[in-house]
């Protein structure tokens, strides 16, 4: 069984953003493997370590710099990597086609995708690629087991959680709670440099385009209340009622 795991190269949570000419600009050095995708890499590598998978292939879509995210996935235990290279700003639906094609090409029967991407704040890629492939999707997964040819999972739904089962092939979107991702060790980082990484140009047209970008900051009152507990408490209660009018 071959597992494909999608990784995205996204700005770090602390990266400085600037809005310039309708685009958000980020320093190239402030990018890293999306934390949400690390759970998928970890899940894939654990299945392989348990002898339940033959190969783990890391897939990425993006510009040349996205190779760094793939190298991280390789250092975490993926066997090989494919970069679907595109400099275009592709929305998740536009990415879903090429990603589905790549997953098929490597013979994957389990495709892992992070639950939400930290650049677009989007949860769409996993479900969209599942639709392209015609596979079921288990989204927001917190427990994942492979039992024979069947995936047994638990995932979050609107009001709680739900048990979910399906025979391979399936798409699973990952999130915090699924596992504790390991850190890449120095020897593994060195080894990752020699693992195969293939680059393929990808042509896709965007279905959504960005017209303008801004960095809004909400005006806050910024009031500090000082004094003993009873004083600040009654002052806060009064202000919430009379000033903010929220009580």
């Amino acid at each position: 069984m071959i597992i494909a795991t999608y990784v995205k190269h996204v700005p770090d949570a602390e990266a400085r953003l600037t809005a310039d000419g309708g685009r958000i600009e980020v320093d190239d050095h402030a990018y890293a493997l999306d934390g949400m995708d690390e759970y998928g890499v970890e899940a894939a590598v654990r299945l392989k370590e348990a002898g339940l998978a033959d190969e783990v292939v890391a897939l990425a879509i993006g510009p040349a710099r996205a190779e760094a995210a793939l190298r991280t996935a390789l250092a975490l235990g993926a066997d090989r990597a494919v970069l679907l290279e595109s400099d275009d700003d592709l929305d998740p639906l536009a990415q879903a086609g090429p990603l589905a094609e790549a997953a098929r090409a490597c013979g994957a029967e389990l495709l892992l995708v992070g639950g939400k991407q930290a650049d677009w704040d989007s949860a769409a890629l996993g479900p969209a690629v599942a639709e392209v492939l015609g596979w079921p999707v288990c989204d927001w997964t917190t427990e994942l087991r492979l039992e024979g040819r069947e995936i047994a999972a638990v995932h979050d739904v609107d009001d709680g959680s739900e048990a979910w089962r399906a025979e391979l092939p399936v798409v699973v979107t990952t999130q915090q709670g699924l596992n504790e991702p390991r850190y890449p060790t120095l020897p593994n980082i060195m080894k990752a440099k020699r693992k195969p990484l293939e680059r393929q140009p990808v042509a896709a047209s965007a279905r959504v385009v960005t017209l303008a970008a801004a960095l809004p900051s909400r005006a806050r009152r910024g009031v500090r209340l000082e004094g003993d507990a009873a004083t600040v408490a009654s002052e806060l209660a009064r202000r919430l009622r009379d000033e903010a009018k929220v009580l």
Partner: protein
Amino acid sequence: MILIAIDHAHGAPRRGAFELVSAARDLGGEIAAVVLGGPDAGPVAAALAAFVPRVIHVDDATLDHASHERRVTALAGVATELGAEAVLLGAGRSGQAVGPRLAWRLDGALLEDVAAVRREGSTLVAERLAYLSRASLTVRAEASPVVVSVKAGAYPAAAPADAPGTVASRAATFTAADDAARLGERRSVARGRVALEEADVVVCGGRGLGDADAFERHVVGLAHDLGAGVASTRAVVDAGWRPYDEQVGQTGKNVAPQLYFALGVSGAVQHLSGMNRSGTVVAINKDGDAPIFKVADYGIVGDVHEVLPALRAALSGLD
């Protein structure tokens, strides 16, 4: 024709349903609503008819607890039959999974988790947040139809229409692929708890509380007093004090209540991304340099254990 997909629970539309009605009315043109589910969804469809001129009830009991794939097939059938130019749905967990599949199935575009949507020429333009809610983007759909998932609380709940609408039932047909996933037991959050995304007031506790008992006493206590939703930071969830479904932030829920209490919360960027659209923010933290104070309307530098009992007494003493 704008089609709105209605989520419901316990025989009534969820609050988000009426927000979608407002979004659809703002767009203008014909509006229809679709309700999925067996006989229990009948009253939901009837309730919706007071708000929209045309309600389609896909009457199939399997849709009461159905895979995303079944729901997509049912919605796609209605959208295609009506020739919908746009399908609006809520941006909750289920909408996040159904929206992209539906958009691809209809060969259209997806405007995801939007705070506002409007017409521009023959297409739709929306406002949405990105980069962990730090940036605001104006995006345009380049394909049609457009599936739009609308953020909870982005629109006010609609008032009933002047004239009641009609309800029509229809059946749905499914394929084997729709049943590839088999759903098991569903565990709901504790009964009586306020749904976080729908709460007007949210009380969030962080590691600064010290331990799970203090969280229960102060955070859950204040939330109970105010009929508020209980939220946690990732650190609290990682420590095992509280369940995942209470987590607010990048990897948890996005909330935008009128009033947000951050108790013993330091305010990491990842947490702020889940709450920075809130109306009034109150922060209580021992560390006066904590980043949470930068997004607070009212800040108290102090020990939650001392301030909270006094605050609860003061709030209950308000006229």
